[in-house]
């Protein structure tokens, strides 16, 4: 920082004095009692001092730079809100992106905040402890700035107001929740590999970079500002994840197979989680900058190749699921949109059939698959919708026991066939959407038998609002689910004919007419 004395010390020496030199080995309480969580996963650490600090931010610099970002961000938000900035977005459909984002992503930022706080408590070395704590407060930042920026949209549009209530209840949010619940209930090293490495380093670019660039392209200054501002912390987080992997692998050769299994598991779990992000890019942004497939190629395949080439020196190989994700990039977003479109009564965001020119864009971006498998369905839906028979599948979904997504994916070698895998554990049957999910289950069945599957819970009678007698003879579980979710009927259904659509059009008209 500004201090001249500090210039005498190099950045590295100064940072060491400011962090690891503060720590000591406890003697009044044994170290293994002070740090009880670091040994049971089987990871061997011989020397915590070998940790290389990636970014060397002391708190004074941290506060200075972060405050500068926060000032800028809230100034832009205030201006955006004062000027009815929500009316500058490309069209009213765009706002549905924010509904999905607030429900599926923001609550996970909070989980990250809590998870990294625990890492900041459990890690023995001062270097990783400090980096994890800094990430913890950053995650609070992301969570809160997202809530603040979307708060203004919530005043004018439906479906945003119950995200906090819905985060642990809504059927389609259980994939993300299970993802983070899985990580946070794992030991500290697995958490670091899962979130720090597989998610932050390998996958988070897909979530944020093209998506936020897309928000900018669609005129949403608020989301763009919040998103890019959050992303400026993300570079620090990614680096922490990568350092962590290197550190663990350099400590002991026995760590390699454990870490490899975690990389395989979490790359896959992250990929499944990101399917809905891809859907936003391909279907929900009225103006598109790139397809999910292109983003996957740029940020996962190319960048991932660089990363795994580099990690080869430790014996790490590309995640087992790599080829499968590459094959699926042609399919997942279409399968996801189909899955949501057909459930108009059960989402807090609107869905729609893409416009003909949007279908053309999809045909162009997905030349191998879109016309062959998906386009006829959308055209059929457009036709029936016009005839007053919008598709509405009223049945309850079957879900994968591990990733909690609905069973909507295809057999790897046959896009026309739904993929099913199953196994028995202690006499009970379990179903999976894919080979990787089955394998994850088989590695830790005791964990995944606990999964909360929304449609099963409904059938058990656990999804009724307070005050409903679930033991009454005429109790019909399905009747109460929407109330249990606090699902606003105005937020459901097709965009066409929605209150959002009418309001956006009327307000924009009012604001642009003289």
């Amino acid at each position, binding site marked *: 920082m500004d201090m001249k004395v500090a210039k005498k010390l190099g950045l590295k020496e100064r940072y060491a004095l400011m962090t690891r030199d503060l720590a000591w080995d406890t003697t009044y309480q044994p170290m293994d009692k002070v740090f009880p969580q670091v040994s049971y996963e089987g990871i061997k650490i011989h020397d915590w001092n070998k940790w290389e600090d990636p970014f060397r931010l002391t708190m004074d610099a941290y506060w200075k730079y972060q405050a500068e970002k926060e000032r800028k961000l809230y100034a832009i938000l205030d201006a955006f809100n004062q000027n009815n900035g929500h009316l500058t977005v490309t069209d009213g459909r765009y706002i549905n992106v924010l509904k999905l984002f607030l429900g599926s992503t923001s609550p996970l930022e909070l989980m990250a905040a809590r998870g990294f706080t625990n890492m900041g408590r459990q890690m023995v070395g001062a270097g990783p402890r400090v980096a994890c704590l800094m990430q913890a407060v950053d995650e609070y930042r992301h969570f809160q700035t997202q809530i603040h920026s979307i708060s203004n949209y919530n005043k004018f549009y439906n479906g945003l107001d119950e995200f906090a209530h819905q985060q642990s209840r809504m059927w389609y949010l259980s994939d993300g929740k299970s993802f983070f619940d899985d990580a946070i209930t794992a030991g500290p090293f697995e958490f670091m590999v899962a979130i720090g490495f597989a998610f932050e380093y390998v996958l988070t670019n897909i979530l944020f*970079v093209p998506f936020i*660039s897309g928000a900018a392209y669609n005129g949403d200054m608020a989301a763009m500002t919040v998103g890019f501002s959050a992303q400026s912390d993300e570079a620090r987080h*990614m680096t922490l994840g990568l350092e962590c992997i*290197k550190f663990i692998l350099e400590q002991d050769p026995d760590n390699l197979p454990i870490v490899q299994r975690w990389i395989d598991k979490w790359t896959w779990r992250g990929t499944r989680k990101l399917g809905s992000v891809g859907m936003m890019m391909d279907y929900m942004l009225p103006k598109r900058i790139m397809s999910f497939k292109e983003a996957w190629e740029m940020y996962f395949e190319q960048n991932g190749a*660089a990363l795994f*080439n580099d990690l080869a020196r430790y014996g790490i190989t590309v995640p087992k699921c790599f080829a499968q994700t590459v094959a699926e990039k042609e399919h997942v977003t279409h399968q996801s949109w189909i899955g949501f479109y057909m459930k108009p009564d059960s989402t807090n965001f609107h869905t729609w059939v893409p416009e003909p020119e949007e279908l053309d864009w999809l045909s162009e971006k997905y030349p191998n698959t879109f016309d062959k498998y998906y386009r006829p369905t959308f055209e059929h839906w457009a036709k029936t919708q016009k005839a007053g028979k919008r598709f509405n599948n009223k049945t309850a979904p079957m879900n994968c026991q591990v990733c909690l997504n609905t069973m909507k994916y295809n057999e790897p070698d046959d896009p026309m066939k739904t993929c099913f895998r199953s196994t028995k554990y202690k006499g009970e049957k379990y179903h999976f959407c894919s080979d990787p999910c089955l394998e994850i289950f088989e590695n830790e069945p005791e964990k995944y038998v606990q999964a909360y599957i929304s449609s099963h819970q409904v059938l058990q009678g656990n999804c009724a609002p307070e005050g409903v007698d679930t033991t009454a003879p005429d109790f019909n579980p399905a009747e109460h689910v929407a109330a249990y979710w606090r699902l606003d009927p105005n937020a459901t259904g097709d965009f066409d004919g929605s209150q959002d659509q009418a309001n956006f059009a009327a307000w924009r008209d009012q604001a642009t007419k003289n």
Partner: protein
Amino acid sequence: MTSNAFIAFQKNEETRCIVEAIVDDNPGAIVVEQPAMVKVDVPERLVIKRATVEEKMGRDFDLQELQIHLITISGHLDETDEEFTLSWQS
């Protein structure tokens, strides 16, 4: 196949200078413009030199100020008072 190290920034006056500095110091740098952001790829090793950025900006620059503008990076990071380096071993 060579691996690219990359860095992306929010587009603004400061990062315009930083990107210019990167282009000067890294032969082979490829600049890609996207809505509201700019990404620079360099085969294997990307370095940002404080001195070059200062020259472009006409003022003192602390490499930690990069924090404010960063969007994403790829590569192993090494940071000193003088240089911010991202690299891959392939």
